[in-house]
């Protein structure tokens, strides 16, 4: 028999529903896989085997009683440790939230439990989701299960959803939640040969998700293929009155409508993404993706998104500005860490607590954000960035008058070695060059595995759709998935 952990989300749910195996057997198999791998990969900050087993027992009992089963019945998943989980420590991978145990459940995680999923544990991430390599976590680096051919150097799983990507790629979770502010679902998915989708801004509730940059933060699904992502996103999405920016729209049945027949659809190839000195393997993978989409019946045209080069600098004003405001709440009074030096007054306590609790990258971004919002600089930086953001969104609106979906590479390279880029913040920021524009415009976007580069490491292709049109993104993703026939997986070394 196939190992249960080799099965994806839909296969597990259907197997449980058909009685091929029980949800309890599935939870036991994944709990064992997590226990075996986590020492080496450090993908989880805390594991919750009892939660997974309890959810499985409820599913098995429901099936025995003949009750209808949810979309994710019997599927064990990991939650990025940015989602508040009632009674289970939630840290955002920061010391400042050390020991924080939420008395409430995030809307997205509640929906997943209601659909029958079980919690294997809370997944590691870049601290407050600020990073592209999972090296800013206060709980240590996540190690990618992937290694280059003949090279045992430890590689980055991408970030910020690096625990999620590593765990899905290592097959120790059936699927995982991620959050994406500037590429934090798509870049790690590309680095680890998995599929990840960020829906239109507002599809998934932000309620109970630790805030980084509220106008950009959006939860999404990370799984082994496009169909699994579609089903998981259906379970996560939906209107939530507790989130002021939640979209009051019905959640489509994306899986039922999935089709890789792209006849009559037009794919745009933005010329500004063909950067000088673009990695040869990445460029070749992009060309291959164009050929695959043509094979699926699509018409492919060149388009222009003229303000692309300004997206990253605009993002690195807007996201830190929002972060500096959101993270003002960590003051050592209501929850988390408190550092109270002898004789300190209240202001000293705030400053000492925040100095001790935040990591270097978080402090750097809070300070940049504080600076660009400060008197005398606000218009030059923040207002200017929001105007440029409007132009970036307008570029997309104009392009989508002629095309249905846009194809680009997900990241400028395959996974780099841990430590290789952590000395220079700007070099790390450039990892998000292809993913940030869609974030600034709130558009749905996904990464699909396209193949391996010459070092034997995965590369991803990136699809960007119109607002609310996750379906076309998923369809084009499926067209690539079927033609790429990506079956490579990391050799088990843990």
């Amino acid at each position, binding site marked *: 028999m196939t190992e249960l952990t080799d099965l994806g989300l839909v296969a597990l749910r259907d197997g449980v529903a058909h009685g091929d195996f029980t949800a309890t057997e599935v939870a036991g198999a994944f709990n064992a896989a997590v226990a075996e791998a986590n020492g080496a990969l450090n993908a989880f900050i805390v594991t919750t085997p009892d939660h997974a087993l309890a959810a499985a027992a409820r599913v098995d009992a429901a099936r025995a009683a003949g009750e209808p089963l949810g979309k994710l019945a019997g599927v064990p998943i990991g939650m990025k440790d940015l989602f508040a989980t009632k009674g289970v420590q939630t840290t955002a991978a920061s010391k400042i939230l050390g020991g924080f145990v939420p008395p409430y459940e995030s809307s997205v995680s509640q929906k997943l439990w209601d659909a029958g999923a079980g919690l294997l544990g809370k997944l590691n991430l870049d601290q407050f989701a600020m990073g592209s390599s999972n090296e800013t976590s206060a709980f240590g680096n996540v190690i990618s299960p992937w290694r280059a051919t003949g090279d045992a150097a430890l590689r980055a799983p991408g970030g910020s959803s690096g625990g999620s990507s590593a765990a899905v790629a290592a097959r120790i979770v059936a699927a995982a939640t991620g959050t994406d502010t500037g590429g934090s679902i798509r870049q790690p998915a590309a680095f680890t040969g998995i599929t990840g989708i960020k829906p239109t801004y507002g599809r998934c509730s932000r309620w109970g998700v630790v805030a980084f940059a509220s106008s950009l933060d959006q939860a999404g699904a990370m799984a082994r293929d496009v169909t699994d992502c579609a089903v998981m996103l259906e379970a996560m999405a939906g209107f939530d009155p507790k989130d002021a920016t939640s979209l009051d729209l019905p959640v489509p049945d994306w899986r039922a409508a999935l089709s890789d027949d792209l006849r009559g659809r037009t794919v745009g190839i933005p010329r500004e993404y063909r950067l000088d000195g673009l990695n040869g393997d990445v460029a070749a993978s992009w060309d291959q993706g164009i050929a695959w989409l043509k094979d699926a019946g699509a018409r492919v045209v060149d388009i222009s998104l003229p303000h692309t080069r300004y997206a990253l600098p605009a993002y690195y004003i807007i996201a830190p500005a929002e972060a500096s405001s959101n993270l003002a709440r960590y003051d050592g009074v209501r929850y988390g860490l408190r550092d109270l030096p002898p004789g300190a007054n209240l202001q000293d306590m705030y400053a000492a607590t925040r100095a001790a609790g935040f990591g270097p990258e978080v402090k750097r971004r809070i300070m940049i954000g504080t*600076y660009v919002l400060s008197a005398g600089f606000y218009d030059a930086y923040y207002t200017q960035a929001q105007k440029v953001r409007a132009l970036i969104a307008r570029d997309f609106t104009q392009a989508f008058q002629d095309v249905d979906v846009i194809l680009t590479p997900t990241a400028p390279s395959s996974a780099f070695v841990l430590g290789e880029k952590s000395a220079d913040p700007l070099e790390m920021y450039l990892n998000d060059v292809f993913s940030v524009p869609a974030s600034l415009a709130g558009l749905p976007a996904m990464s699909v595995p396209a193949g391996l580069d010459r070092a034997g490491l995965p590369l991803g292709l990136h699809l960007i759709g119109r607002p609310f049109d996750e379906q076309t993104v998923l369809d084009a993703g499926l067209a690539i998935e079927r033609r790429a026939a990506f079956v490579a997986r990391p050799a088990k070394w843990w």
Partner: protein
Amino acid sequence: MTVAPADVARIAALARIKVDESEIAALVPELNGILAWVDQLGEVDVTGVAPMTAVIANQLRLRADVVGADPLTGGGIRDAVLANAPAAEHGFFGVPKVIE
């Protein structure tokens, strides 16, 4: 625009983050590198462009004006609110003395 050590000290004070001299010395070139890079936004012609206020047009809603409509925020859960506090005393958040 560039920042000097005094500017970094002022920003850190505004952000309520304690930094010592050596941290300031390290932050000055880092922040200047980032600021020099974002300065390229200044070359974009934004004449007549309104700053973005929402990525997806949405209507702001009002909730029903009912006390306790949401049991999580409706009150009467003092102990749950205080449960994660580093110093909860007598049903209040404890802080260092603020009155001289």
